[in-house]
């Protein structure tokens, strides 16, 4: 797979799958306001995916559009980070997952505003501004629940213990990153780790949550090796286009 195309898929697939997970809250939010907020954030993420996947299709040059890339690829062809495909758990768990990944996205978009790929730079400049609100929203809840009651604090700490080991994958070095960094199209995700750790640490600290000790576990979603949850997510997300190819409304 061409490094430029693969790099774009990692971004577009991650925003798409996180958007899909957040959209699962639609009609199930703990309060009407949160239901609406999660749907709005999901729409932004899916909107960013549409832009990135459309651009990725053009870069690939095989005539695939955003819909074909989103709905007609198999699990091993997706390049999203494993973190975003994990099941939602309770509301706090979703907020923490969203906070960890949206903070990463914010760092990534900011760096990609300087991409030599003008199309990617334009999408990044736009998404960067939206990401700020996503981080604020999720960070607000992480603090409220982490520094909340004994029950909410305990749940948030267990969620952090569950999710933390999946963040190692985000910063794992690989030849694709090296190739796009060399051509100026992208940045190596590992270079975003220091900024991410500061931004995440500040909020977790305020939330009175303790960062777990590092582990040797390395998930590999962005390399195309997914968790057992991904197939179920795709079955739901892709059902309509699989059952009725080319359906529109």
């Amino acid at each position: 797979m061409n490094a430029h195309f693969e790099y774009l898929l990692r971004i577009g697939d991650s925003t798409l799958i996180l958007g899909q997970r957040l959209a699962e809250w639609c009609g199930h939010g703990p309060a009407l306001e949160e239901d609406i907020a999660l749907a709005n954030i999901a729409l932004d993420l899916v909107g960013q995916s549409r832009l990135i996947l459309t651009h990725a299709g053009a870069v690939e040059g095989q005539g695939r559009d955003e819909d074909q890339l989103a709905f007609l690829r198999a699990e091993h062809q997706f390049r999203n980070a494993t973190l975003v495909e994990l099941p939602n758990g309770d509301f706090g768990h979703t907020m923490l997952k969203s906070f960890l990944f949206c903070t990463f996205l914010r760092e990534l978009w900011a760096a990609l505003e300087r991409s030599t790929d003008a199309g990617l730079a334009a999408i990044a400049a736009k998404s960067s501004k939206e990401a700020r609100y996503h981080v604020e929203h999720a960070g607000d809840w992480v603090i409220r629940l982490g520094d909340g009651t004994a029950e909410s604090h305990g749940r948030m700490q267990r969620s952090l213990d569950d999710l933390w080991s999946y963040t190692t994958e985000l910063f794992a070095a690989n030849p694709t990153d090296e190739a796009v960094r060399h051509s100026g199209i992208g940045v190596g995700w590992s270079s975003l780790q220091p900024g991410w750790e500061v931004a995440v640490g500040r909020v977790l600290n305020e939330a009175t949550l303790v960062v777990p000790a590092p582990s040797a576990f390395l998930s590999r979603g962005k390399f195309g090796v997914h968790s057992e949850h991904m197939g179920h997510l795709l079955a739901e997300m892709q059902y309509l286009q699989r059952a009725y190819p080319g359906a529109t409304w």
Partner: protein
Amino acid sequence: MQTLSEADAWRVLDGVPDPEIPMISVCELGIVREVRVGTDGVAVVVTPTYSGCPATEMIAESIRAALKSAGAGGVSIETRLAPPWTTDWIDPAAARRLLACGIVPPGPREDAAAHPIRITPRALTCPRCGSTHTVRLAQFGSTACKALWRCEDCREPFEYFKPL
């Protein structure tokens, strides 16, 4: 047969309301960036607001319909991402109209470096009673671009068009 001038086209577009905030037009919102009139019709360059804004397609349809009914031979709509849309492009007169309708217009954008993350939002002035005793209920309101607030004195909810 193309009968519209460029100035005509702008006038027509200034009559196309935003579908979700109908008290302001798509021009006042600042999303119409360029209008070109040629022999085969009118080309309109539009910059989308939020990536997830569900009104984007409806806006394109409204623009197309308005220009066609005003006599445009053909209408093409082009999306331009860079530079990204900002609330700084909202017309000041339109911003005052928003306030009159109970929507607090966007304040200045914050310097991202100076405020990496804001957990406690600044207080807004209630558009109904003028009190600054207000609280944010939700970062995302009836649309992605607005937050939901409440005045603690008059107890009325109101919306805030977030700076972007």
